């Protein structure tokens, strides 16, 4: 199932919630999640008869321009950009149309993936189909829609693209941080089949699952001599599958008209220049520079650069410690604990100082890998705690005293005569087994190299 053989074409339409204080066309808070259903609303975002939109939220537009700029897209400065009405009926759409702008920027690029266009629009409310309930708290939250060309060849490429996009968005601080605001529609076609659109994917991870499912489904259907018709499918997150929604025999007609209530947007060149100046060094450039400057492996640099705060931490500590072992530790044990908690470094609330102290304990052999892990876990539970003080409190100070260790080694050997026999027969596993016993007895504090040395001496 290589992409090349199948000739898969994948294009994505990514909707992200733009960061802003208020909603796009009214004064309601954009942070709708903390409100009771239908309390974060006004006549405008519920489309009451007679209400009109206020001016398009400036912060939201500025954040969209940041995104467009970071995607190397051309921002339209020489023309009027109309906000259009896209008409369709749905319970969560209070006026029966969604306000959505014409493309604000076009011809962008992330690596080899071309970005067709970026535009701004309003989020509809939320509709719970099964309960028949509508909540308009979300109605009017500003969205950016990023549309790619069908340049992605495999679900893996799509995943890598989205990871990079996510990293870029994180660097820009341009989107709302709360989870669940992102929605992706994916278009996928295999050679010999028609274009299938998968709608309502709610996470970047879901895109991969949906695309993986679709490539397999479409491929096996084609192999059996079946036909892929143009259709829209719904992504079922629980099952990780896609379900046919409706056949697209004729294209939908949204009867677009320019919204008569909204004067067209005009973006000034100065504004574009101002935004460009605010764009930080982005993950791709960051990776290249950090890897070169600190002489670490590029793939390690890439992992670190996936989050701005993480790579900043690295750069802060790399002046003090050897870079490659530091990168290994950050990419390995640190990232593992963060991933396990589904968090980014900045969410962990760990301070640079505390991490510096902890990593310093490892390099100075005050902590073993095992105790460093234990300390990190405790620190993640309560980021106020300083690692060294914590180690003392928990009795997790590394034991370097050979006499002290020797006593424990002898005790352990006396309890495991069978293991000694095995070792003498040449079984290396027995050595690991005994070392494990000792580490358990000392809660990981015994210096491992001394344990190894003593075990070998005693059993020789």
């Amino acid at each position, binding site marked *: 199932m290589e992409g090349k053989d199948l000739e898969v074409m994948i294009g994505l339409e990514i909707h992200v919630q733009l960061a802003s204080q208020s909603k796009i066309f009214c004064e309601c808070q954009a942070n709708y999640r903390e409100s009771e259903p239908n309390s974060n609303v006004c*006549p*405008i975002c519920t*489309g*009451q*008869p*007679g*209400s*009109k*939109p*206020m*001016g398009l939220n400036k912060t939201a537009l500025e954040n969209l321009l940041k995104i467009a700029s970071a995607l190397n897209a051309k921002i339209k400065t020489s023309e009027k950009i109309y906000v259009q*009405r896209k*008409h369709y*009926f749905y*319970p969560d759409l*209070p*006026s*029966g*149309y969604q306000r959505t702008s014409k493309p604000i920027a076009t011809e962008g690029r992330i690596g080899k993936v071309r970005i067709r266009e970026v535009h701004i629009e309003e989020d509809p409310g939320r509709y719970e189909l099964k309960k028949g309930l509508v909540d308009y708290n979300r109605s009017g939250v500003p969205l950016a829609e990023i549309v790619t060309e069908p340049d992605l060849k495999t679900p893996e490429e799509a995943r890598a693209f989205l990871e990079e996009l996510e990293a870029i968005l994180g660097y820009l601080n341009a989107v709302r941080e709360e989870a669940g605001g992102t929605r992706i529609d994916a278009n996928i076609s295999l050679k010999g089949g028609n274009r299938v659109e998968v709608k309502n994917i709610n996470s970047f991870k879901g895109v991969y699952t949906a695309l993986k499912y679709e490539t397999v489904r479409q491929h096996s259907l084609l192999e059996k001599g079946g036909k892929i018709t143009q259709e829209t499918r719904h992504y079922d997150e629980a099952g990780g599958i896609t379900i046919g929604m409706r056949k697209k025999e004729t*294209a939908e*007609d949204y*009867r*677009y*008209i320019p919204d*008569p*209530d*909204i*004067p067209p947007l005009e973006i000034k060149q100065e504004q574009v220049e101002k935004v460009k100046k605010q764009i930080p060094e982005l993950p791709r450039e960051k990776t290249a520079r950090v890897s070169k400057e600190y002489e670490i492996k590029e793939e390690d640099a890439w992992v670190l650069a996936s989050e701005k705060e993480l790579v900043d931490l690295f750069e802060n500590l790399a002046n003090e410690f050897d870079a490659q072992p530091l990168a290994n530790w950050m990419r390995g044990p640190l990232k593992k604990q963060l991933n396990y908690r589904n968090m980014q470094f900045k969410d962990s609330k760990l301070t640079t100082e505390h991490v510096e102290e902890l990593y310093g304990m490892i390099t100075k052999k005050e902590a073993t890998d095992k105790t460093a892990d234990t300390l990190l876990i405790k620190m993640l539970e309560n980021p106020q705690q300083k690692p060294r003080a914590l180690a003392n409190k928990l009795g997790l100070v590394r034991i370097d005293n050979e006499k002290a260790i020797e006593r424990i080694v002898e005790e352990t050997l006396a309890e495991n005569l069978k293991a000694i026999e095995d070792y003498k027969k040449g079984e290396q596993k027995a050595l690991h087994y005994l070392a494990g016993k000792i580490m358990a007895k000392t809660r990981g504090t015994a210096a491992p190299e001394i344990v190894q040395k003593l075990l070998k001496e005693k059993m020789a």
Partner: protein
Amino acid sequence: MKTTELAQAIKKGELTAQANAEEKIKAVEKNKHLNAFIDVYAEEALEKAKEIDARVKKGEETGMLAGLIVALKSNICIKGKRATCASKILENYVAPYNATVVEKIIAEDGIIIGSTNMDEFACGSAGTYSAFGPARNPHNPELVPGGSSSGSAVAVATGMADLALGSDTGGSIRCPASFCGVVGFKPTYGAVSRYGLIDMGMSLDQIGPFARDVEGAMLLLTTIAGKDARDQQTSATPSQLAFEAKKIKGMKIGLAKEFFEGTDKQIALKIGEAIQKLKEAGAELVEVSIPSARYAVPIYFLTMFAEFSSAMQKYDGLRYGLPTDVTMPLAKAVSEERAQGLGREIKRRIMVGTFITMKEYSEAWYAKTLKARTKLKKEFETALEKCDAIVTPTMPCLPWKIGEKMSNPVEMYMADMLTASANIAGIPAGTAKCAEINGLPVGMQVHAKKNDENNAFTVLQAVQERTGK
């Protein structure tokens, strides 16, 4: 007594707001047969009047409209009151907020007496397309009062209100003002906030005043005009913060033959006489040409249909109107709801508007209409460079009998042929009575440049004074 004199008298305590309110409420009772109001707030109006009198007595400052009785078209939202749009689908819709114009009237101590009858969703030129029954012409109850702001014009003509607000998308203020013999004014697009005005054709809609004299219209417009963050199309110029009439002498008045071609001969004659009186008063007459004015009706209707069909999307049976029968399949339930909740004319306009904005037809119809609109707008701008105001008849015909023209929509649409241009061009236009034919008033229409209301008011005031009204 002029409206402004009445306002001064109440301010000074020479007359009471209470007496004024009582007089208006009596007139409402007396003229019930004209069906001008959908809802009357008599008690609240009296209470507010007493409160104003008490403040005058204490020597407190009162607003510009203190003690004046104002009627509002029922497509303008008043918090806690029904905003029916004279439609079944909004029969029980209580507005949760005030329109900006309502806020401004309240701030200036105007007393709101009720919501007036109209053509459903402002779609009509006669006042006959109301789900609450037709409004009637005070000069002859068998005749139409004009529309769509029918009740507002009737209320002012019969002394049920000192002032009224209507909305004008293609002539909906000027038509009933002309048929009822009062002053009606459609301001520059953007002079008055539309926030709280229920949509019809959003690029054409403007709220404007009715009054029994030009001074009253200026006073109310001064109250309601101005920039509003809740209507992005508003723009305020200094001249729009206080309206006043100047001297007619030396003004250049443009005459365009296109506006007389389809007009009833008798009306054209009367307008000609009134124009002579303006000349006698010192105005200079200039011939101008606006050839595309002949296409004002198709340009106006196609633009409005497209925007109206979009505006009406929200009345899908899920949110407004009669309770939907949930046992029916969704599509059927929604069509039933709309079939019962919306009038025939509304459905016609939604269907045509939907058709011309469909992908397949949009280029041929909607896009072409927008181009024609730009052309007509430019022609007006050019013509208005040669003169200060353009004078035309307001209506091409006299009020017809209630029930006539109902079977032929195109015939009804033609009634807007002289008024629609001002909306298409976004310029101000008002009407004042200049003559009578068989006891029925004839209105003269005055257009001016964008944001140049005062020139229009100057000519209207001269019409009012010189024609002996």
